[in-house]
């Protein structure tokens, strides 16, 4: 399990990660969402032992990561701009990682080389951004890490490859108990993949929760009435947001769906339905509720 305890990282006077506290369960996919410069990459670099924290601590399975090779053997960090040796090809890079990571699985690499159709003898420098990303992912997955840290992993991948990657990640979790932490500025990319989502802004985690709980707890209700019920009759509900359009009420309500629908139906609407909100909508509602202009945060 990964645990951030009051984790802080400063660059000069700029605080990139500001007293972050969080826990990441094993065999899960943890999404870190935030705009550019919000501190996502810094958090991953701290977690991979690239940076040393200025305050607080990172504990992975109870141990500190920095300068701890035994722990780092279980962690693979794939940055948003992956590094390859000058003029190296995929085979040479695989040889390198095979020497460095005892967990490197050559047969898995060969399998992934079939999934990602990249020449293992061409220079990686000459490949497109998307192909370089695929090469980096192949190498990362071949090391069979316990913790895989992906920064903007889907950048440059076409929809087919995005889908393949998602399947591979889920396969890794199911078969190898892998824990994946993905940082992205695109919430939509993570919503069908992550078990847990955290929204990071200006170095602070504004919101962090299990996706199932988030989804199960928020309901978007549309109901039409002949005569709109007085607000007093809706007081029992935990309404996050409510918009009136003529005789139509559109509400975001937190709570148990059955209970909410029973309450709405008791007001005798012409029709009423519950729609599952998108993750982005939930975030927007949740963060607006605590005073953040979430649309700007996620842009």
């Amino acid at each position, binding site marked *: 399990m990964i645990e951030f305890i009051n984790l802080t990282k400063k*660059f000069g006077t700029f605080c990139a990660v500001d007293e972050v506290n969080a826990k990441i369960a094993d065999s899960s996919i943890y999404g870190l969402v935030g705009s550019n410069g919000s501190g996502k990459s810094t958090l991953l*670099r701290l977690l*991979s*032992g*690239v*940076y*040393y924290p200025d305050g607080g601590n990172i504990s992975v399975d109870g141990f500190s990561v920095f*300068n701890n*090779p*035994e722990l*780092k*053997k279980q*962690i*693979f*960090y794939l*940055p948003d*701009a*992956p*590094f390859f*040796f000058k003029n190296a090809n995929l085979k040479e890079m695989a*040889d*390198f990682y*095979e*020497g*460095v*990571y*005892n967990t490197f699985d050559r047969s898995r690499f060969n399998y992934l080389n079939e999934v990602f159709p990249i020449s293992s003898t061409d220079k990686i420098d000459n490949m497109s951004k998307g192909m370089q990303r695929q090469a980096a992912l192949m190498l990362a997955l071949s090391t069979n890490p316990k913790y895989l840290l992906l920064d903007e992993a889907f950048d440059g991948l076409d929809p087919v490859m995005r889908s393949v990657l998602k399947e591979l990640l889920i396969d890794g979790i199911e078969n190898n108990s892998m824990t994946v932490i993905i940082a992205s500025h695109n919430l939509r990319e993570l919503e069908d993949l992550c078990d847990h989502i955290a929204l990071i802004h200006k170095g602070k985690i504004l919101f962090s929760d299990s996706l199932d709980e988030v989804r199960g707890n928020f309901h978007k209700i549309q109901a039409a009435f002949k005569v709109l019920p007085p607000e007093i009759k809706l007081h029992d509900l935990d309404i996050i947001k409510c918009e009136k359009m003529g005789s139509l009420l559109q509400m975001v309500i937190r709570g148990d769906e059955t209970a909410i629908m029973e309450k709405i139906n008791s007001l005798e609407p012409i029709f009423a339905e519950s729609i599952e909100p998108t993750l982005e909508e939930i975030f927007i509602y949740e963060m607006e509720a605590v005073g953040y202009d979430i649309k700007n945060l996620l842009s």
Partner: protein
Amino acid sequence: MTSKICSVKKHPVVNFFKFTLKKQTPLTLLVTAFTLLFCPGMILSEVNDNHLHNYSLSPFEFGSISAVLLGAALALVCMILLLNFGFLFSKKAGDMFNSLPFTRNELLLTRSLGAFIGGFFLMSVAYFGLVIVNFLPTVDGVGIVAVINTYLFMVLSLMVLTAFCILIGICCGGYFDTVIAFGTINVAPVIILTFILGIAEESVTGIYLDYNILIYLTPIAFAINKVMFLPSVIEKPQELYTMAEATSIYTIIGLIVFGALCVFLTVKLFGKRKSETAGEAYSFKFMPIIISLLVSVVGGFFIATVLTGFNIKFNLTFWSFFVVCAILCAVAIGAIINRSFKQVKTFVINGIVAVAVMTALVIGSLYIVGYAEVKVPVASEVETVYIGDIEFKENIDLAIKLHTGIIENLDDEEEYIEDKIYPEIYPEVVYNFNNFDFEYIMKNGSTIKRNYWYNQRTMKDLNPDILALMQTDEFLSKFDLITDIAKEEGIVTIYSFSEKFGTLEDDGHQKIAILNQKDATEFISIFKKEMKSADISVFEEETYGVEMAGEIYLNLHIPESFTGTIDYLEGKFLSQTEQTD
């Protein structure tokens, strides 16, 4: 296939080290190939050109070639270090390398050791070539002891210099800034001390400063210098006793201590180095301060020197230029380090601090040197004294009296400099005493050196003292060299070079006399006799000049009152003449 698996399953650090070596191999082989063209390639070519005669590979030549090999190896080490430590200068590479499952020390060790091995390989291969040439039957080379000791010293030097280079490298965050830092740290101290010594010499008369101290300011110059002279010291310790002492066990201990200090600092600093500084100019806050202070002084000095027409003096004009230029240079290097002018105020302060430190150092050195200038050794503490190349062991009192008299007669600075630049005609009496180089060998083993120009206007009161010295047996024994040469070679040739003798023809042909051993003894005997009975009027006389040539050349200015000497020579001049140049 089995072996492949076995090698892969070795310790990751070993695999990483092997990978490092593999990556640097092409560069290592290329630079080694170029070096081999020089050594043994070029030397073999020389040996071949001289195949009819024995080729003599002198100890100094052997040392010089070894020094070049050390330099080439160090250059390769620096190149490999820049490649191996690329992750210090690139965020992208830094992300990858710092996330690898190694401790920082393992990362440092594998990359450093790789660079050292590259340089060591080049040096060893080329040195082996040199040794083969050295022991060829047709080559008269240095002995096995010198060969082994020089090699061991080179290996030690390369290790220490590698540690020194890594120390500089890990303090930097960019390739460009590393090169600037490396150049500045190695060159600036030498220039700064040269600057201080130069000003001291220009401002204070008589002082003789030892510029050899400059090699101690940079470990690279120090090691290369020591390697250059080591074979000579081993082969001919009796001739180079001073240097033999300098290349003693203390040199080796000093190098080891310095290397250990570099390693200690490197490990400490590398452990504290923040990965996020990759791509920035420097990784530690002290680096911009050090670099800006050094660049400020060197830049200020250089520009002020150019702007004042190379008239380096501790006066208002030069120092005003120096102060302004130093502060501007500090601002300029600050802009280069920050890639902007955002910390101008800080670097202006650095420039002011640099100027203040330099002013204090120069004033301090002038005070110390000025004190030394008026300090004449006590006779009881002096073992012997040389004036020029003549030893006065029995007449130390006379030498000290002359030295004291010179100091008492030193003119004020302006007049002195004027006289130094446009010296008045000095008395060409007997032996060119136009300047006085005093070298005292003290009983405690130390030496004191002073140098003064003879100034006819201010120092003529010293003529009796100078004459007294010239009449001593120690001074006159200098001319026994002529009889010694005549004894060894059978003859000594004497050429006239002053018009006072006249010429055989009008087109400037020299007169030549060839003296045998008997003639030479007689000639010197007459000269000594006349010198013993001379008075100070000889300083006002015109002189007859001759050059005595044998194994050595010796000029003699014979005052016109030495008629016996002159007549003897006139009687020996041949009718055949030689065209003067």
